């Protein structure tokens, strides 16, 4: 913490120097207009009224297209390293699910309007008009971002052609404005903490329950008698209880409570009619939760990020407008030389009583063959590793205004070069493991050595855009139109290129798109939008590479009609509809599925000397007609303003996917090969969004309350499913990603068994191995007397929630302001066995036991144990119990939750005070990220609803300052 304070002071000193220079400069440049306002605020207003999207920005009121935007200022209110974690609840239609909090690997998963397909549902990201990777987007700084728009409207998406089906995130970075030179300095400093850590039981409860488990395992061997044969003696139990026995809280030992977070940035803007500049320098440093110093021999998990953005605009020779945008970044990650997810798994499975951290007899690190990786030693004794990432997006744009040919006509050419590379370096060591004075493994303690630097991965993305546009008003008619040609050439490393078939060495991705859009309005009341794209992808056979994607939208501003014009309660009302086609050429099944491939396979021998002849076999059968998945999107909605205070937007949408690339399992076996991939899958996704905002003021008290909700639910209409034995096991007709499993009906009781341990007549026989009292009982859904994999059915909802909602409040009184943002979801379920396996399954494979198993079924009258009536967990076992750990309703839990994503309390100094300080704006604030969570899983199982296992998700408490001059 001390270091951070020091750094903050340095930043402030730096700011003070800059401030002084600025004051001098401002005196010199008095002839230029002052900045309209603080730049970001200006742009926020702009983002509200102007629709962002490909080719041209346009006034929302003149178009039938509606896509929500959020400004960088709003995103900046959530101080987190990864930009995806600022997006909760701020963009209606965009669902964001938090993941790991590990520094440098903390991206949230994003989806637009639910999920339209069971193939690749990944959205596509554009920064300043060019497609980028998710990794480039994730570590942009909110200080560089002007706005983020979720493109989900059918007309907007159709112009993306084969990139549009899953929706697009459209990011615009900050540019200069015509104003006097302005400098904004922002610093935020805080501490990050684990949202939740689900700790296992300590040694006493571990040993107590282990005794039950081992006794249960001997039940059958003991002639089905309940004989208590504890492994841990009463004396041992007592030693655990009174603190003399080994009882290590691994989480406490390996983790610290707080990880520091700092973000500082300086934004320079200004310019005149011939040149404008927007320059952003941003530094971010985040340290992880590991209880280890960052130095030459060890390292906490850490991310340092340096962003530089220079966006320049030039006007020259009357007809030219040029933009030069450079967005560069360095990311330095450091972490202990031990795989993060594995460390968290060790923390969750290593029992408290296995050994003290250091072997008492020798003072060396403890370790055994069963538990070789002492978590504290993993952090302290193995050294550290690091990666160094360099990223650059360089865009150049030239616009020619051709009004001399035809008024309103222009041409625009743009090119983008985006490149990323990663190198790795490490200082590593190994250590010997000891237990009770003896070495337990062959590992030796070595000196720490430097392993040099190696190249890891890279990508390179070149894109070009040429647009011809036309923008003209003729009386009551207004036309804005653009025609665009786009070409993209992406090259990645073979190591990164692994999704689906035929990737590997096929590292070149080429794509072309010819598209256009026309916006026509009559009297600003009758609105028409036309869009189209002709997309060509290199994934398909010559002759079937191109697809056509048209769209149409129409709107009617009803409030401009005479009968509503002077209506006092309805200030604005617009109805709109849209329909459009789009596609997706990036299937998870792979590329070049039209090519017939052959693979090597075994050998057959001839001759008496047995000369081997290697076999070669046709892989899946090629489908020469394979093509991009297709989406038909329909949208209807309205935008309204009531009493000039209440804004309401509502949309209903329907997404009919077809041609989803699927292996055609309906082909008869006589086909005789791996089924070909065909465009046969169908999914329907539908839902609605409502968004409302109420703004008012009472005297000096200004407030704004808003809320939004998205409902999206899909259904698999066809997926060429291999027909299951029973109709109730079918996936077709259900939503995508539903969990499938058995229906649990409780636990077996002693009365369910005969004296010889066999199940009583009439009870279905489970096919997963022998059962005994206390095991989970399942429903024999098909009634054939056996419970097996044919009795599986839908046991819950997908993890991606059907309903996502958020509400927020902004309150301001004089210089003070308070904002709160809540976000939650409902309608999803979690399978504990997949989401938190080690926190759920006790003892199996030498793992730990958690409070969830505290109420396990047990019956040992001789030891005074009888939980038969109250058990909520099956009988404990140390063996792989295939019966109990089947996917079933027993382990399905509701995943509803509501979080406070962000609270910020701030103070803006008054204008008079600022004038004395030669400042335009000074703001100080306190904020909290994810401070409160209400969740069924957390209440009942102490598990976070989003980050269920692994490196914990984060919350943070921060203080910050913004000054502008």
């Amino acid at each position, binding site marked *: 913490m001390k270091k951070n304070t020091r750094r903050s002071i340095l930043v402030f000193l730096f700011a003070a120097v800059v401030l002084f220079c600025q004051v001098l400069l401002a005196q010199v440049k008095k002839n230029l207009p002052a900045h309209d306002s603080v730049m970001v605020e200006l742009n926020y207003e702009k983002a509200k009224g102007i629709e962002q999207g490909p080719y041209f920005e346009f006034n929302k009121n003149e178009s039938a297209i509606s896509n929500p935007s959020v400004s960088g200022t709003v995103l900046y209110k959530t101080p987190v390293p990864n930009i995806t974690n600022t997006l909760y609840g701020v963009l209606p239609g965009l669902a964001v699910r938090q993941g790991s909090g590990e520094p440098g690997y903390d991206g949230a998963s994003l989806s637009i309007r639910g999920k339209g397909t069971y193939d690749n549902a990944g959205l596509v990201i554009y920064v300043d008009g060019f497609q980028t990777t998710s990794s480039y987007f994730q570590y942009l700084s909110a200080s560089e971002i002007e706005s983020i728009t979720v493109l989900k409207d059918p007309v907007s998406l159709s112009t993306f052609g084969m990139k549009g089906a899953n929706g697009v995130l459209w990011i615009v970075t900050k540019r200069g404005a015509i104003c006097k030179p302005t400098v904004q300095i922002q610093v935020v400093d805080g501490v990050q903490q684990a949202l939740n850590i689900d700790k296992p039981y300590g040694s006493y409860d571990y040993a107590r329950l282990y005794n039950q488990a081992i006794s249960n395992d001997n039940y059958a061997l003991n002639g089905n008698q309940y004989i208590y044969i504890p492994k841990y003696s009463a004396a041992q139990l007592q030693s655990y209880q009174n603190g003399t026995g080994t009882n290590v809280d691994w989480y406490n030992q390996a983790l610290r409570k707080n990880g520091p977070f700092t973000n500082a940035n300086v934004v320079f803007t200004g310019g005149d009619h011939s040149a404008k500049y927007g320059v952003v320098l941003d530094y971010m440093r985040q340290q992880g939760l590991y209880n280890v110093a960052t130095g030459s021999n060890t390292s906490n998990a850490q991310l340092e990020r340096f962003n530089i953005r220079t966006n320049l605009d030039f006007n020259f020779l009357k007809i030219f407008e040029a933009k030069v945008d450079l967005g560069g970044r360095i990311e330095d990650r450091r972490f202990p030389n031990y795989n993060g997810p594995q460390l968290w798994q060790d923390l969750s499975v290593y029992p408290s009583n296995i050994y003290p951290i250091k072997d008492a007899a020798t003072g060396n690190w403890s370790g055994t063959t069963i538990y070789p990786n002492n978590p504290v030693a993993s952090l302290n004794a193995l050294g550290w590793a690091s990666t160094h990432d360099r990223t650059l997006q360089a865009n150049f744009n030239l616009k020619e205004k051709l009004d001399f040919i035809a008024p309103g006509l222009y041409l625009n050419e743009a090119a983008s070069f985006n490149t990323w590379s990663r190198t790795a370096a490490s200082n590593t060591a190994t250590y010997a493991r000891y237990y009770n004075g003896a070495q337990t493994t062959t590992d030796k303690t070595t000196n720490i050595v430097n392993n040099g630097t190696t190249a890891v991965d890279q990508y390179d993305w070149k894109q070009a855009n040429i647009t011809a546009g036309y923008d003209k008003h003729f009386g009551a008619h207004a036309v804005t139109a653009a025609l665009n040609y786009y070409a993209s050439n992406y090259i990645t490393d073979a190591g990164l290129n692994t999704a689906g078939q035929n990737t*590997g060495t*096929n590292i070149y991705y080429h794509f072309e798109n010819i598209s256009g859009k026309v916006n026509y309005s009559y009297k600003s009341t009758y609105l028409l939008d036309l869009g189209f794209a002709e997309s060509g992808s*290199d994934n398909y056979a010559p002759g079937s*590479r191109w697809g056509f994607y048209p769209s149409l939208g129409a709107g009617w501003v009803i409030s401009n009609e005479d009968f509503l014009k002077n209506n006092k309660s309805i200030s604005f009302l617009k109805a709109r509809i849209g329909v459009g086609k789009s596609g997706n050429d990036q299937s998870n099944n792979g590329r070049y599925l039209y090519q017939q*491939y052959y693979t090597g396979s075994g050998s*057959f021998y*001839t*001759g008496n000397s047995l000369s081997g002849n290697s076999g070669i076999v046709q892989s899946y059968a090629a*489908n020469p007609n394979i093509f991009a998945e297709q989406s038909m999107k329909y949208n209807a909605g309205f935008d309204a303003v009531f009493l000039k205070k209440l804004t309401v937007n509502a949309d209903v949408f329907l997404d009919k996917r077809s041609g989803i690339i699927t292996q055609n399992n309906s082909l008869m*076996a006589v086909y005789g090969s791996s089924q070909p991939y065909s465009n046969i899958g169908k999914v329907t996704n539908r839902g609605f969004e409502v968004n409302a905002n109420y703004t008012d003021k009472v005297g000096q008290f200004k407030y704004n309350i808003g809320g939004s909700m998205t409902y999206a639910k899909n259904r698999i209409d066809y997926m060429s499913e291999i027909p299951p034995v029973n109709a109730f096991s079918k996936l077709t007709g259900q939503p995508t990603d539903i969990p499938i499993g058995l229906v649990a009906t409780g636990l077996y009781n002693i009365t369910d068994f005969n004296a010889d341990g066999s199940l009583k007549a009439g009870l279905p026989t489970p096919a997963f191995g022998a059962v005994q009292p206390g095991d989970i009982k399942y429903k024999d859904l098909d009634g054939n007397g056996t419970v097996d994999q044919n009795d599986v059915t839908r046991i819950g909802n997908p993890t991606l929630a059907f309903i996502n909602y958020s509400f927020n409040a902004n309150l301001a009184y004089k210089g003070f302001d308070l904002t709160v943002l809540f976000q939650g979801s409902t309608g999803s379920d979690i399978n504990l066995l997949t989401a938190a396996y080690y926190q759920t399954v006790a003892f199996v494979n030498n793992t730990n036991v958690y409070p969830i198993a505290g109420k396990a079924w047990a019956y040992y009258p001789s030891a005074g144990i009888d939980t038969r009536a109250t058990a909520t967990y099956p009988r404990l076992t140390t063996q792989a119990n295939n019966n109990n750990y089947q996917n079933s309703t027993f382990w399905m839990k509701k995943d509803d939750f509501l979080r406070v994503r962000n609270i910020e309390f701030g103070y803006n100094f008054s204008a008079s005070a600022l004038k004395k300080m030669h400042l335009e704006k000074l703001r100080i604030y306190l904020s909290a990220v994810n401070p409160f969570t209400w969740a069924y899983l957390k209440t009942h199982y102490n598990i976070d609803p989003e980050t269920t296992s692994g490196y914990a998700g984060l919350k943070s408490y921060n203080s910050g300052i913004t000054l502008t001059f």
Partner: protein
Amino acid sequence: MRYKFFITIVAFVIFLGACQKDFLQMPLSSTTTVDSVFSTTTNALSAVSQAYSESLSQGITYQGAWAYWNAMLQENISGALNYGFAWSVSEPMIMNGYTASGTSEDMDGFNYNYTAIRQDYLVAENIDKVKDMSASDKVLIKAEMQALVAYRYEQMMIAYGGVPIVSKTFNAGDNLAVKRNTVLQVLDSVVSWCDQSAAILPSQWPAIYTGRMTKAGALAIKAKALMYAARPLLNTATPYLNFGSNNNLICLGNADPSRWTTALTASEAVITEAESNGGAHLINTGNPLADYGTATSTPGNAEVLLAYKNDNGSSDASGKGPMACFYNMHTWYAYGNMLTENFLENYYKADGTEQSWPDLVTVTPFSDYLTKMGQMEPRYQADFKNWQMDAANNPGDSYWSNANDYQWGSNSVSIPTKFYYKAGTRGWFEFPIFRLAAYYLSSSEAYNEIGQTANALARLNKVHTRAGLPAVTTTDQATLRTIIQREWAIEFFDENYRLHDVKHWKLPNIGNGIIGGNIYGFAFNNGSISTQYGNINYQKTLIYTAFWAPREYLNPFPQSEVNKGIIVQNPGY
């Protein structure tokens, strides 16, 4: 002004049109496509190898230890061997019968037949594209592929009855609604394919290519199909279960005794071709153990007309080749495959008389076991290692001694050692698909059925006396039928005949001690299991009671295929 506007637009469009045409062309990468497979002889011969490997693997544990469908021997479910370690596949079939859904089909499953057949057609259809191969070689390869297709259909006819006949590689867009053809259509196709390919195939291949399909091999496929067609299961108007209008999918539609004549002609043609042109002969040097051992075990011996010469590499977890996994008792996967008492009863004593075995009640001293086992005929000695005795098929080889080859105790009769005569530590072997001896027995069976008893005896005794047994002399047709069936059981133990023979003969006791019913073994040491040394006594004991239902005369089709609505399931499933 307006024309300038249009010029600009036109210039823009021309610019777009000028974009590189091959921008979207797939670049060269490290993969093999259809064009490169059939461009050179080297690659094409790889495809040919694959065709042999897939087509001839039917019913054999070629996939190694963990491949589910291959984790058992056919003899496990025919009642000859205990179900052993392979219980995960064979046990439910033995105890509960076959079911159409999932796990109880015969070996690697119905669908895989068509994978093999597709590979055969793929080679035949594309071999003409190869540039550096002579036209005559291409004709030969096509004939080989045709014979391999015939082999798969012959085996499918025996296991399933009528099956869909395909005659090319399908494309995804083709109409794949191929219904089941009748048994008669399958039989006729097999016969005509074999006739066509036999006319082209060579009688012998040059040394480096031995093992490829020969004229005798093609004739052998045809003869096997015709013999099963003559047997009672298919050669009838009233099938094992009434299938109504679909009866012709599970039988030939009439009982025609002349089918035995046809089968006889085909069988004799194999013998003639193999012995006169193919360089094959029954191995008979007057040393029965060695002769039978060589004929069944030695790679490339003179009696084998077609063998499965599979990959013998170390491709599974145990470091043993896949074939060794379930046949070689040095590999733990095979430990459970032990001889049942039911099957033991088939073997003669070396002098041709019957052995008397203990009953369920009497506890007999173990010395009696050793004595009686010592009296058994040479083929028994070659095929099994008795408890507390060294294996007779590798005399003097410590690797096969009781000291080394005992794995664990059991309540069964003895341990199979077939296919490893004088093999030493060699784990692999070549599974004999067609042995010349089979056609002597086929001829014998056919002669007997058409009443030519003398000829039947002559053919039978060639095999019977080769095994060191005195010649059979009975002239009673029914008695001789039983003796011939017994000869099939003994001579071809573990060679994948028994399971289907007992069904196609419709043996009356099939559900009572053969496939179904009580399956016995030997208990040792007062009702316990055998030990490596110092066994005290033994008696007959019940191991399990196996399932049998008439529906199992033919296999079920996979439910997932039937659900597609084109294939009619066999009756009873």
